[in-house]
């Protein structure tokens, strides 16, 4: 069970300074002020969209059918990935604050999911928690949670209330009958690629814990033929994680609120090339 509260706290408090700027083509006045916010790594960018929309209302004409979307380095941001994942993927090691362009026109509906209400975010979030529990406990914990527990998770995340969130989340992170998770819910992200997701058991046939090293080698054999290669970095919450860490521990402590362990694999040379 996740009992290292300090670690959970640290992760919860991760923030990224983001400078939101209005897309040039959409400004109806000169020099609209940017909107600078400290954004939680664990949230979804569309959860703070209301605030941003309010800020830019006086600098642009927003129609009823307009839908806000965000862009970084020319790419539409997939808002259904947590902010921390988007940042690590697009901006790791680059100068802060993170500059994100805000659009209200020409929503790229072929690239990103629509998000017309917070219910959409909640649905995406809950389906992810559910899938994670299928992987960890064959869905047994979710089956025993009530509607009010679901709400508590979601409200805890939405209103940034650590205690409220963890009251329910610790049940989802428990080992049933002291068994390790059946599979580790994880996704690996790489720049300009689809994310990778596989079934991976946290222990081997002898019951010994398996490490991040084993997971990388099995999931991305082309990159991690040598699982200790220094050519690539593996980031979780922006932190380069030691590869001999047991994946069960990572899953319990470093999973995002959607109960998935989101990892970014980046070439180490990325920045010197730029």
């Amino acid at each position, binding site marked *: 069970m996740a009992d290292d509260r300090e670690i959970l706290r640290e992760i919860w408090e991760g923030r990224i300074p983001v400078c939101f700027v209005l897309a040039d083509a959409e400004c109806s006045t000169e020099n609209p002020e940017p909107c600078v916010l400290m954004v939680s790594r664990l949230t979804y960018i569309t959860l703070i969209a209301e605030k941003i929309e309010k800020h830019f209302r006086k600098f642009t004409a927003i129609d009823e059918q307009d839908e806000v979307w965000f862009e970084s380095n020319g790419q539409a941001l997939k808002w259904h990935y947590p902010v921390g994942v988007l940042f690590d993927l697009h901006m790791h090691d680059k100068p802060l604050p993170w500059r994100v362009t805000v659009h209200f026109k020409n929503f790229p509906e072929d690239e990103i999911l629509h998000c017309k209400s917070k219910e959409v975010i*909640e649905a995406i979030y809950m389906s992810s928690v559910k899938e994670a529990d299928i992987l960890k406990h064959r869905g047994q914990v979710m089956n025993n949670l009530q509607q009010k527990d679901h709400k508590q998770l979601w409200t805890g995340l939405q209103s940034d209330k650590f205690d409220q969130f963890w009251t329910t989340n610790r049940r989802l992170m428990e080992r049933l009958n002291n068994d390790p998770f059946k599979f580790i819910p994880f996704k690996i992200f790489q720049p300009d690629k689809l994310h990778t997701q596989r079934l991976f058991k946290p222990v081997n046939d002898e019951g010994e814990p398996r490490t991040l090293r084993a997971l990388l080698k099995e999931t991305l054999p082309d990159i991690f033929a040598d699982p200790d290669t220094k050519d690539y970095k593996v980031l979780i919450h922006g932190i380069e994680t030691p590869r001999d860490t047991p994946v069960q521990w990572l899953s319990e402590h470093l999973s995002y609120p959607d109960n998935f362990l989101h990892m970014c694999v980046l070439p180490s040379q990325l920045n010197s090339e730029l």
Partner: protein
Amino acid sequence: MEGAGEVERVTFLTDIMEIERLSKRLKEGWEVRSHTVGTDAVPYLIKRNVMRQLPISLEAADGDSHGSGSDGSILCNVTDSRHDACQLEELDVPVTGAPSVEGHRIESCQFEYHIIHSASYNVPVLYFTACKSDGKLLTLEEVWRQVPGSYQERLRHQRWTFITQQEHPLLGRPFFQLHPCRTADLMKSVAPISKGNYVVTWLSSVGPVVGLELPLAFANLCQAR
């Protein structure tokens, strides 16, 4: 290990190839595709260019989809689209863009269906995308509205765990998804001891929700092998 109501990826592959073979004979348009993810080739089943005549709310076209959230009011005007289309044809009225009463017009919508095996749930998952004659995607509200009357009660209570937009796991683009979380339970009750084609059995029970009907000839595949 296969839990009750689940299907292993290997069996899934056999099933979809069987569907493709029969479909070729029947000219039903199903085909097996393969998409490479990392070092794996992931096979899946698709059917493209399915045209459906659907009533599209004129209001929604004006961008008002916010108000149709929690009270279920959008679900009131559900009609059987095929029936509608037939009637219109009989009346010799052009179907596309035909004005109609109750703030709706009938539009030709193009659907594409993808069936992908989910490793997490160990069941097939139905993804689909649909666009209107102007090339715009159907909105989630429009997709909910086309669900036949018999499923509307469930939709009213569980819309957010029934059909929503999700990222296509192989293409990375937005698709609509029929949620897989109850598939195993459904299949346990539908075909507890069936040794036939799992995907056909499953698809005949969930397909109609989104306008997908398998011809009766496919039922033969459901008999014990």
